[in-house]
């Protein structure tokens, strides 16, 4: 059969002289076998893409409509393009402030998660000592359980931290940052543990020979080597912490009128949904959603290559 004849020539990316021969043959093969499937699969992909994009575009359009248009047919087009709903959502709805809060917390929690996670993972992966396994499994076990199981006592714990210093307690940036870090550690340690194990030992040994301290060897030799792993787990953590809802709703509640509103974006948006419910301001709500969505999408679109390659190395371990 013909397959056997040109088997040798199909090893990819050879740029060999046989390539011109191979090309028509392959196209022919796919064409006769895959025509129907191609239409089908393309159709399926396109439908799914529409299912993703349509609701998002619809929300953006909704922020330009008025109450009657939103309550009318979903297909109505905004009659006049007014940005007033955005103004309401930004100022009265406080979306701007929620953004800042979220950025502050994520910046802190991500840095700390990576630092502490890498330190713990490194020691557990590269050093033998009594209790190593126990600590490792303790970390890994935490990744299995949903957060809400520990919510009640956690609340008191954070409140207690607040009695040490108000900077740590409820409705404080640092308090929430520490909680985010603690709940991100299991995955981070688990992931980086296996990553540090794969790194060659030779470089590290050489550094130690040169009189490096353990800590310096870690920061100056091992961390740079683990860069790709750190980026991957960092992306996981950004997504995970960005998605948190239950923790900020419990721990980041304004405690009274004199307490600043430090809501995260997610809870702020749900607040907005609730207040715009009582003030009957649907366009304001849609505008709030738009404001919450667009910057993230823009950031994602600009960094999507890094995100995808980060996830790529994450699965390659």
């Amino acid at each position: 059969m013909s397959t056997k004849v040109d088997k040798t020539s199909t090893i990819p990316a050879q740029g060999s002289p046989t390539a011109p021969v191979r090309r028509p043959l392959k196209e022919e093969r796919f064409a006769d076998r895959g025509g129907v499937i191609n239409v089908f699969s393309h159709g399926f992909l396109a439908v799914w893409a529409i299912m993703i994009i349509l609701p998002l575009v619809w929300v953006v359009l909704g922020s330009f409509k008025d109450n009657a248009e939103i309550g009318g047919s979903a297909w109505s087009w905004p009659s006049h393009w007014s940005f007033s709903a955005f103004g309401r959502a930004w100022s009265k709805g406080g979306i701007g402030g929620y953004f800042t809060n979220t950025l502050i917390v994520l910046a802190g929690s991500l840095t700390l998660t990576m630092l502490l996670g890498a330190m713990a993972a490194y020691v557990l992966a590269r050093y033998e000592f009594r209790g190593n396994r126990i600590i490792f499994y303790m970390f890994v076990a935490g990744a299995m359980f949903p957060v809400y199981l520990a919510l009640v006592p956690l609340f008191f714990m954070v409140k207690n931290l607040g009695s040490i210093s108000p900077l740590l307690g409820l409705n404080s940036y640092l308090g929430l940052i520490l909680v985010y870090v603690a709940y991100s550690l299991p995955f981070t340690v688990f992931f980086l543990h296996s990553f540090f194990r794969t790194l060659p030992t030779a470089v590290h040994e050489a550094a130690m020979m040169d009189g490096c301290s353990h800590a310096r060897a870690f920061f100056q030799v091992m961390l740079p080597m683990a860069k790709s792993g750190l980026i991957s787990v960092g992306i996981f953590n950004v997504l995970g912490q960005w998605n948190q809802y239950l923790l900020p709703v419990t721990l980041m509640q304004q405690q009274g009128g004199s307490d600043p509103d430090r809501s995260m974006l997610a809870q702020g948006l749900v607040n907005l949904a609730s207040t715009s419910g009582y003030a009957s301001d649907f366009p304001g709500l849609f505008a709030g959603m738009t404001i919450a969505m667009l910057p993230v999408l823009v950031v994602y679109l600009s960094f999507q290559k890094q995100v995808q390659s980060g996830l790529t190395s994450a699965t390659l371990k």
Partner: protein
Amino acid sequence: MRHRKYPFIVGFLFLPVLLYTVLVIWPYIQTFGYSLTDWSGVSPSMNFVGFKNYTALLHDDIFMTALGHNLLLIVLLPVVTIVLALFFAFMLNVGGRGGTGGIQGVRGAGFYKVVFFFPQVLSVAILAVLFEAVYRSDGGGLLNGVLIKLGLENAQQPILWLSDPDLVFWCILAVLIWSGVGFYLVMFSAAMQSIPKDIYEAALLDGSGRGQTFFKITIPLLWDTIQTAWVYLAIAAMDAFALVSTMTPPAGIYGGGPNHRSEVLATYLMRNFLPFGKAGYACAMGVVIFFITLILSVVSLRVTRRERIEY
């Protein structure tokens, strides 16, 4: 050198372990303690009641309903999400016509990969508010609007979606799948790209179609990744709190309706903890969920364990 090792180990582990113990391990342990009390959650006083909360749980129909829903989610969410994500990943990476460069994805693969990932970067609260509007129960909702436009639905009898007891669970499941597929698609894509292309080419040349390639080559080689995906999705299925509590009726008391038809453990636990003032009972629920999760994790890791294929 050796004498400097232990201070270093302790120095590096101290902070992470301290933080983790105080904020994660200890609260979990305390949940066990509270579950043996009649604590109301609104006052600091409580009495020891032994295992009364646990025996009450056995007779709690709503708890069983919620548990059933979570178990159903644990089966359906991973299966559907993984199947869709695998299918899309296969299409995007090896499903296209052979061009000049050998095996490749369909045209526009890059575009699809970017778009499918969108929902993952939207926080779950945005999804909840967004889909409340999508599922709105009259022609102003996106879904009803589309169906009415297509003539598939009578505008006078719109589908109630989240308020229809037979649909509400599936509505929630759909959102979970909608938002999750993109992430696993990218994950599987990455894994597929690490499979040497000559394996595919060889298979094609041996005359196997795309279907066969998919089942005989892709799946076995991706088994590790699929297993990881399964675990992540199962954890997500045990939760589902944000969506159910904000999207389903009765509003204000963590949803779960109508008539508990979308109840999940997390919403029922929170409703007992806050509005019903039964924090001790809620903690007992937490402990039971803890053990169920533990058993399921161990079982699923056992069941899905296979020989790892090295390539």
